[in-house]
């Protein structure tokens, strides 16, 4: 293995082959990490959509003093001979973590409600105060008599390798309870996240539900404490839901998708840390989730950055093409039917056969219509030429001149007519009376009733704006 460098695929394949799948530690760590990824992602969806993304972070940090106090409590009990639950009893530590997490949540809501401090500031204050207290207690315990073996420091950054069968069973039990609760309360939690006031109006106990959600988030945090630690667990709450959001517009698909991404990140992180010794599991899980997030951010089909960028570019190019086409149409129209300026509508229509009479417009003429750069105009013209809508005309001076082709005239006529109808619509919208308008439709004729459209066409004629350059077949809309 020394000979193969770690960046080669061979290194990892060999590593996977050499993994001892019967090793119980590996199995428990893998299972625990997957469970944690799933549970945190499911609850994280609601925290994310409720606008409480930082709440998980505050709750996780606030769990640390709880763990330390629970440990101290067990030590104290054993010291006095009152009870002996074992100072590393996971249940006790998790109960401590939950209690201090909930105390922190309560503090945040009290501060936010009864002072002028906003919730984010309250979260920051409570998070640091609790975490500071936790570190203080942790340091005390580490330097105490039984402290060095306490292993409490693993709660800071997590230590998945320390997971044993009973831990994972505890985690699994909690994860199942949380998922069932989410399923049962799905509709109420959705309403809580979308429109709390409306939910209260319906008579649903929204404040109570908010509390339930908080307790459930604490539960998810607690599941991950041992494997990922208080510092990084909030990443598992937020990153998978944020990644899942890119792929879907439906909550009932977003939650399973987030669970899948979370579980996969958990498994992948655990596997990587098993392959590469001396690599901590928690951070690797978070990095795996971040990779999923980055892929989603870039490549998701609708909301992804590349798709959005591409759409923006496509729209921009479409607009530039249409503008160039309209301008060329306008110049041609003015040349072939110079009475155009007479706005009495008496100007003669120009039949398509006369198109060849026009010797073409220069780039400068086109640019004068609209202040676009030469490069932009040329790009648009080249695209129009490729579509077969315009052609170049050789002129005596040798400079390029552009002319509409018959099929280009058809296209340009449609575009110009559409734009002018829009203008008319915007000018006379109020006098037309309220129409059921879907402004997403790109053509006026798609949403206006026929009589209103006829009115608009009349207006267009009255204003002398009817396109006079008629293609062979005038579209009947």
């Amino acid at each position: 293995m020394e000979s193969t460098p770690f960046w080669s695929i061979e290194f990892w394949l060999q590593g996977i082959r050499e993994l001892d799948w019967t090793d119980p530690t590996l199995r428990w760590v893998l299972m625990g990490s997957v469970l944690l990824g799933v549970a945190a992602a499911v609850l994280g969806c609601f925290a994310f959509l409720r606008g409480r993304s930082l709440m998980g972070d505050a709750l996780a940090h606030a769990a640390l003093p709880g763990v330390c106090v629970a440990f101290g409590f067990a030590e104290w009990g054993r010291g006095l001979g009152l009870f002996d639950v074992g100072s590393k009893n996971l249940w006790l530590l998790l109960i401590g973590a939950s209690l201090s997490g909930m105390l922190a949540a309560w503090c945040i809501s009290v501060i936010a409600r009864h002072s002028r401090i906003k919730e984010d500031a309250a979260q920051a204050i409570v998070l640091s105060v609790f975490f500071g207290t936790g570190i203080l207690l942790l340091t005390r315990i580490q330097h105490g008599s039984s402290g060095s073996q306490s292993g409490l420091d693993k709660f800071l950054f997590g230590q998945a390798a320390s997971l044993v069968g009973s831990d994972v069973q505890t985690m699994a039990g909690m994860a199942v309870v949380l998922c069932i609760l989410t399923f049962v309360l799905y509709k109420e939690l959705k309403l809580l996240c979308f429109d709390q006031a409306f939910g209260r109006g319906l008579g649903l106990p929204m404040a109570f539900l908010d509390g339930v959600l908080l307790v459930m988030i604490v539960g998810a945090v607690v599941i991950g404490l041992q494997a990922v630690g208080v510092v990084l667990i909030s990443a598992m709450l937020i990153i998978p839901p944020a990644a899942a959001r890119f792929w879907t517009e439906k909550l009932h698909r977003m939650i399973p998708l987030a669970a899948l991404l979370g579980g996969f990140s958990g498994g992948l992180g655990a596997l990587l840390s098993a392959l590469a010794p001396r690599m901590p599991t928690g951070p690797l899980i978070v990095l795996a989730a971040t990779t999923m997030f980055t892929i989603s951010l870039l490549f998701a089909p609708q909301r992804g950055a590349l798709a959005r960028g591409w759409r923006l570019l496509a729209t921009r190019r479409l607009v530039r093409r249409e503008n160039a086409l309209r301008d060329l149409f306008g110049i041609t129209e003015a040349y072939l039917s110079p009475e155009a300026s007479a706005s009495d509508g008496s100007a003669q229509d120009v039949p398509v056969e006369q198109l060849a009479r026009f010797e073409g417009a220069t780039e400068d003429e086109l640019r004068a219509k609209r202040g676009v750069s030469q490069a932009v105009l040329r790009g648009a013209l080249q695209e129009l030429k490729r579509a077969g809508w315009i052609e170049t005309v050789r002129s005596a001076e040798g400079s390029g001149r552009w002319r509409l082709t018959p099929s280009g005239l058809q296209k340009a006529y449609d575009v110009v007519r559409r734009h002018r109808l829009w203008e008319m619509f915007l000018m006379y919208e109020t006098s037309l009376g309220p129409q059921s308008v879907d402004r997403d439709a790109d053509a006026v004729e798609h949403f206006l009733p026929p009589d209103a459209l006829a009115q608009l066409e009349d207006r267009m004629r009255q204003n002398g704006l009817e396109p006079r350059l008629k293609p062979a077949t005038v579209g009947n809309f």
Partner: protein
Amino acid sequence: MQTQTAPTLDRQPSANTHPQAQNGQVGAQSPGQSAPVPALEVHDLTVAYHRKPVLWDIDLSLPAGNLIAIIGPNGAGKSTLLKAVMGLLPIASGWARIHGKPWHEQRQLIGYVPQRESVDWDFPTDALDVVMMGAYGRLGWMRRPGKAERKAALHCLEQVGMASFADRQISQLSGGQQQRVFLARALAQQAQIYFMDEPFAGVDAATESAIVTLLQELKAQGKTVIVVHHDLETVREYFDWVVLLNMRLLAAGPVETTFTRENLQKTYGGKLTVLSAVADAVALVAARQAQFAREGKGAK
């Protein structure tokens, strides 16, 4: 109205269908007379945010089956009044009754249209799903909306002219369309009394006319609609009753008798910007002219 009431009637628990008849016996003052129970009755209501009261001693009785506008300047407590009577805000003193009973006993009768800006429209859901939320109160815990709720919700979308947008992601709707989705959701509540918080704010002409038609339909069905409104010009046209509010109740009654210049002046005081600004401008011009006239005379 032909088919529109049908789904309402099938699924509404019979007890809630005729709240007036039902509550008439309980709430009527004298058993011999059948004095109609007001849709909304507010007594001595005071609401405070922190230490500052926003509504003082409101006494109000609004008859059922009317379209009622609440108007007043910004910060007059219009939305606060709406929220307080629905139990969404704590009441400092006094009480409010809806069809003769406290709000928490009458939740099935209340439909609510919050302000559009109060929610995050990028929430991952579609229009139909939002409308179905109106049925959540009736469904109760554990039960998911089923086919019947879907059908009813589609019908509600139809009533606001949004049927073709049922599966549209809500962030892709225009402001007016979002408002209509909220109205459809309130319809899905199958209520007797509707509270609408600025439904006309920032909507297009199409939505405004859709809302007005809907209000008329609701009125024809004998429902009460209480609307926080900001456009003084349309009050006469759209509403039967008007409540004039500016931290205190200034007037309430039928539009013809209550929506008077005098009452408006009381409500808006110096804030009735258009009127007072015009008056100021006229006074200023007059003063200037008088001054010029004087100076002119003096020069001569």
